[in-house]
């Protein structure tokens, strides 16, 4: 027996219900695709399109973060930089770049920053 699709029996032509939002079809693809809900062959709803869009946005955001971090370092007074990430941290490269970029930018902008040298005993 064929798999049942969201619109009926697989293999049979299915008449789509009249689309009341025809105007949407004229919208640019990026705006339109956010509104589309895909149905997998199993009949389960899928947010595949939304996820793809979101992934693309994340990718471009992370690329931007990388470029900004590189540019920040080039402009800064620093001659060398090193990092340590504990093995218990399961962050991705993108997440680490975003965190470091934000932290270094804030650190440089913070004119009132004071070292904790005297407070620390390790």
């Amino acid at each position, binding site marked *: 027996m064929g798999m049942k699709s969201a619109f009926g029996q697989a293999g049979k032509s299915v008449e789509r219900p009249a689309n009341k939002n025809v105007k949407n079809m004229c919208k640019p693809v990026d705006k339109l695709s956010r509104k589309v809900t895909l149905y997998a062959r199993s009949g389960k709803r899928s947010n595949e399109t939304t996820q793809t869009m979101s992934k693309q946005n994340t990718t471009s955001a992370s690329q931007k973060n*990388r470029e900004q*971090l*590189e540019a920040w*370092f*080039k402009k800064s*007074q*620093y*001659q*060398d*930089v*090193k*990092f*340590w*990430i*504990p*093995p*218990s*941290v399961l*962050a991705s*490269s993108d*997440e*680490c*770049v975003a*965190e*470091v970029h*934000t*932290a*270094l930018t*804030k*650190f440089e902008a913070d004119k009132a*920053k004071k*070292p*904790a*040298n005297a407070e*620390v*005993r*390790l």
Partner: protein
Amino acid sequence: MPQPTPPAATPKPLPPFERSFKGAIALANWLKHHNYYVSNEEGVNVSEGIIWPAFKDAVERYRAKPIYLYRLDYLYNTSISLKAPDHFAILIPFGFNTCHQRFAVCKELCHILTDDNEVRANDPIAELNSALATATLLRNAPKCQGLSPLFQPKTLSSEDFCFLLALEILIPIKERDKIVTDALIVGVRTYDIALRLRIPESLVCFYIQSGYNTAYKRVQGSELG
């Protein structure tokens, strides 16, 4: 009237060293015996103040530039070491517990002490990926077949070398057999061992599961032979 404290002696210049597991063992041993205050005669280097300020003061005198430590509440997972023309800055997450702070600061001090122009990094993305690769390597230590790449006789990145150097500094030699026996035979929890040594539990796990002690003894044995 109390006499002013005489200025501490400038630590001796570092001997030539290779960036390898063997080199980390040799350099840590040298540091312990040459005014760097990372240990005393008993080899107990877990007491408070041994990493900061004692080791920091020695590295500061050696580099002749101040080292500033910042604990930042907008940093969460990563510690950072920065070299400026007139100072060094170590940035650690405010949320790191004492064990993580000790290890992070010790490892960054090892960078300040040992990094030269040869390993100077001006690509933060590459350095961050290198730090992530090391974290993954340590996390996957039990899954590694054979000797961990960190223990093989080859030149390591500055990242991996300073990780091993910090571990060598922070784990007292006389405790090492006991750590393995406690964990594998007696059944002491790795958390309790971490608490005793005051290093992150994940590194205790790495120490036990990677065969670190065996690799260490092999290097020591080859030195004696």
